[in-house]
Structure formats: C-alpha cells, structure tokens
C-alpha cells in the first residue's frame, strides 16, 4: 500500500548493544526524520507565519505596518466573532452529547452480545463515516428540501406541514443532524474497540461479586473505556469548533440562514478569501486555536481525573 523507498539511512550504527530497544542512539531519527521534516513545513512553519501575520496590518496607505497586539484587541471586541463562537458553543453543547450518547449506547448494545446480526449493525452504522462531508451535506440538503426531498414527500403524503429544516431557526439543528449522522458510527467503533479489549478477569470478578448487567456497565465497562471516551470528546470538541464544510456547502441553499460569519472558521475564511484581510484573519484563527486548545485541555484534565 505504501510506496516503498529506502528510509533516510541513519549514520553508522554502533556495535550491537546488549538490550536492543532501550539503548539511546540517533537511529530513531532516521525513521522519524521524514515525518518531522514534513511536519515542520505544514504545521510549525504556518503557525509561526500566522503569529507573524497577526502582528501586522495591511493598510491602503502606507502598506504593511507593525501594529503589535491591535489585531488581537480588535478580535476580542468583534461581535461577529463572538456570535460565531456562541453558535459553535451551542452546537457543541447539544450535538456532541447526543452523538456520543447514541454512539455509546450502540457500542454497549453490540458488546452485550444480545443483538441479532451484530456484524451487520456494526458495519452499517459505521458506513456514513466513509461519506465525504460535502456529499453528506448535499444528500441531506436534498432530503431536507421541499422540492424533491423527503420533507416535501412527507408533507405531500400525509398532508403535513413540517417546518422547513433550512429556515434560520432550524438550520443549526439541521447541521447538527448531518454531523451526528456522519460521526455516530465512527465514535461507536472507537468505543466498541475499547470495550472489546477489557480483560475477562474484570468480568469474572464482577460475576463473583454478583453484579448485574447495569452494574457491570457502570462499574466495569465505563471506567475501562474512559480513555476512549475522553479522546472521542476531545476530537468532537475540536470538530465542533472547526465546523466549516457543512455550513459552507449549505450556504447556497439557505443564504439567509447561513451567513459568511456563521462559524469562526467560516468567518476567517471569508475574511481572508473574500475580504483580503489576511492579517486579521490570521489573528482570529489564532484566537480560535487557543480557545480550542484550552477547552480540549480542560476536557482532558477533567476526564482523566474523574474517579481516578
């Protein structure tokens, strides 16, 4: 699957040491070197450049000038930014618990061994993950639509007047539904994989203690997969704050409901590529990156501490 090329060879190797893996040498760099080099180019350099950009401002008169932290001051007072941040925060608080809750319940159901056709469930529920966000959004937009979508069909068939999922009041929930659809299976699989490797001895101990099903779940299974729960939560938090593809694709359909500053990422994108405000855009992106990291870190701390 991978293209086989000789890895960057490390220098001459010292004589065979007694205990192989723990000897300290530069050999490992021969293997990780390529990763680190590309990583520096596509992660570290842009971050550094971004920090640099955020300290300058492009003016019509006078060209690029150093403005210190002015851009940051502007960002902190920017109502459009805060509105966007509020929107993704609301999204995070509602969508992520629903998605992870469903994923966890399905994973527990699969792991319980009580389902008929377990493998069919596991694979089918995972499949939406393989669907690109763009295709998922196009597909759901058709389903939401009244023209040839299911909402229109249902209205016609049953004489209903279901609310328009693309109206300003509902569009955030509609996006939440798309994201949930895309990632329930993925998270379910993460949880399920973690459940599968719980040592049997824990179940035996619980059995000896006379624990019932529910008790086994709360006392054995959930604590054992806490790491997976925390990781999934962190990825979901990051994902919510980065929300872009779905609103961007849906914008054509619901231009009144989805503005170009709908999410922080959408806002930085618009600032940079429609507004040519590269410096300010970089600043907003940095602020957003910092907020994301702080929250991800807090989730991690809390998650690891709980019951430990």
């Amino acid at each position, binding site marked *: 699957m*991978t*293209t*086989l090329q000789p*890895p960057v*060879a490390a220098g001459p*190797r010292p004589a*065979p040491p007694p205990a*192989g*893996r723990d000897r300290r*040498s530069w*050999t490992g*760099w*021969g*293997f*990780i070197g390529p*990763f*680190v080099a590309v*990583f520096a180019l*596509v*992660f*570290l350099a842009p*971050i550094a450049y*971004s920090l640099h*950009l955020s300290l300058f401002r492009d003016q019509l008169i006078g060209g690029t000038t150093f403005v210190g932290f002015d851009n940051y001051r502007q960002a902190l007072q920017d109502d459009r930014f805060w509105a966007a941040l509020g929107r993704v925060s609301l999204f995070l608080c509602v969508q992520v618990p629903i998605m992870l809750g469903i994923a966890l319940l399905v994973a527990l159901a*699969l792991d*319980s*061994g*009580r*389902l008929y*056709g377990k493998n069919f*469930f596991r*694979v089918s529920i995972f*499949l939406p993950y*393989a669907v*690109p*966000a763009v*295709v998922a959004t*196009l597909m759901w937009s058709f*389903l939401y639509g009244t023209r040839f979508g299911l909402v229109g*069909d249902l209205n016609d068939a049953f004489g209903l007047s279901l609310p328009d999922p693309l109206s300003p009041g509902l569009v955030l929930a509609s996006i939440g539904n798309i994201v949930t*659809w895309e990632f*329930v299976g993925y998270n379910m699989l*993460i949880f399920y*994989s*973690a459940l*599968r490797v719980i040592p049997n001895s824990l179940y*035996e101990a619980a*059995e000896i203690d006379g624990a019932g099903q529910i008790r086994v779940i709360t006392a054995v299974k959930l604590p054992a997969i806490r*790491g997976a729960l925390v990781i999934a939560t962190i990825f979901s938090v990051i994902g919510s704050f*980065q929300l*872009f593809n779905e609103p961007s694709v849906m914008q*054509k359909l619901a231009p009144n409901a989805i503005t170009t500053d709908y999410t922080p990422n959408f806002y*930085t994108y618009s600032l*940079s590529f429609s507004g040519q405000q590269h410096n300010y855009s970089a600043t907003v*992106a940095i602020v*957003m990156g910092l907020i*994301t*990291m702080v929250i*991800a*870190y807090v989730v991690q701390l809390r998650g690891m501490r709980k019951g430990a």
Partner: protein
Amino acid sequence: MTSTVTPAGSAAASSPSSGSAVRLRTPRRRHSPGRPRHSVLLTVLTGLVLLYSLVPLVWLAISATKTQEGLSRSFGLWFDGDFALWDNIAETFTYDDGVFTRWLLNTLLYVVAGAGGATFLAVLGGYALAKFDFPGRRAVFAVVIGAVAVPGTALAVPTFLMFSNMGLTNTPWAVIIPSLISPFGLYLMWVFAGEAIPAELMEAARIDGAGEVRTFFQVALPLLAPGIVTVSLFTMVATWNNYFLPLIMIKDPDWYPLTLGLNSWNAQAETAGGQPMFHLVVTGSLITIVPLIAAFLLLQKYWQSGLAAGSVKE
C-alpha cells in the same frame, strides 16, 4: 509468525470477521452466567440507529436511478418508472467533456500520493517512537500530539499564503503536501508498533547481522500489516473526503477533487435559471462514495483488528 500479528490477542481474534449476519457469541470471550440471550427489544432499538444511518444512503442509491424529472416527480424512497441509472452514470462521466472523470483521476492522485505518503511517514515515525530511544523523542511526541488540537483551518490562511509565495497554489502539490501529515496515524502506529513487534525479534535480526533498514522491512513491516491497513484507510478517507484544503488551494477546475467538483455542480444547478442537473449531482455523489465503502467492507477484517489494538493503551 502471522499468529502474532494481532496484538489484542483473543479479544480481537474472536471478533468475527465473516459476513454471516447472525452468529452466536463465542463463549470463551465472556464468562457471564450462561450465554447472554439475544434480545429482540435491544435489536429493534439499535435498529433505529441503523435505519438512521442507512436511509440517506438508500435514498441516494435509489435517486441515482432517476431522471431529473423523476427526482421531483416520485417518492424519494422508491423507484420511478424510468430506470435511468446507466444513462445517468454515462452522462456523469461525459458531461462537460468528461470533467468528472478528470476530478476522479485528480482525487485518485491526491489519495495515492497524499494518503500513501502519509501512511508511509506515519509507519516510519510510529516505529521510531515505539522501538527506539533517541534524543528528543519525548519532545517530538509532545509537539505532534499538541498539534492535533490546533484547528486545521487555523493553519489554512498562513499555509495558503506560504504556498502562494512558493508558487505551489493551484498545483496538485498544494493538496498533496499538507495531506502527508496524519498525527492520528502516527499515534495509531506508535501504539500498534509497541504491541506488535517483540523487542526480542528485532534483537535476533540484529544479531543475525541485519541492518536497521533491513530489520524494518523484513521483520517489522509484515508484523505491522493490520496497523498499516488501518492507518491507510483512515488517511485515505481523510484525503478522499478533503474539501477545505482544495477549496482554498485550487482555483482551476481542472485540478478539483471530486468533492469540490460536485459542490460546483450543485451550485450550478441551484442558481436561478441554472442547468437542470441535479440527477448528475446525485449520481456523481453515489460514484464518489462507492469506492470508499467498498474498501471499508473488503478490508474490515484487517482495519478492525488494527483499531482494536489502537485502543489498548488508552
């Protein structure tokens, strides 16, 4: 040798990989009093999630068989009188001088070079982190894990400006190079390599006089196979589904991947007085997802054991 491939041991090995839908749980896995009985209620409840997952895909597959008129005329979840799937597929590939074919080839290029390269780098790096103690090892790991929390889109603007200065925007390189890094892939390979390659085996190879390169390719690589399949599938999905990166990097429709192309078709159809081509958007969407779904289904035995190993250490 192959029996040691699955580090998760009996747990992952007992995870049935055959396609048989109904199968009783292997008793050695769980020691509950008596084997758990299959529950109709639980199956029905989980079935609701199953329906939720599959109905939109079924809708897409059915809709791809309809003409533009059929789409609006018929009920979404049932077939229209005309079965136009083959016509739609032919039209999708030939519309506008076969631009869809071009997008498909572009996507393949991005996947082979980007996801292939990302997997290769992750395998090398994960192997290094798991099996060697080298100066700066902890720092490398901390920086890479920290980078996961940096929103990819926060990097977009500076990366675009950098690449623009280097003259790389609007070329395939602008999509391929950033795709080469997969922190998740590195993490997964690190955990996997730690479990899958016994230090004694590497030592034996060295004593037999194998160099590091040879030890890697002949001893480590075969043992890493399930991990490699897992990482390559996930990097493949990430590259195949990528939208944001090409959106900012590529202006020339000749270099669009499928995602960007489909979105441009949809925009074209949505505009007032636009071309009636929703049937092409729908059929193109179906063609876009089929290869990935096929890859996941065909390789599930491998990637699921790879993923299970990845969760051991959390």
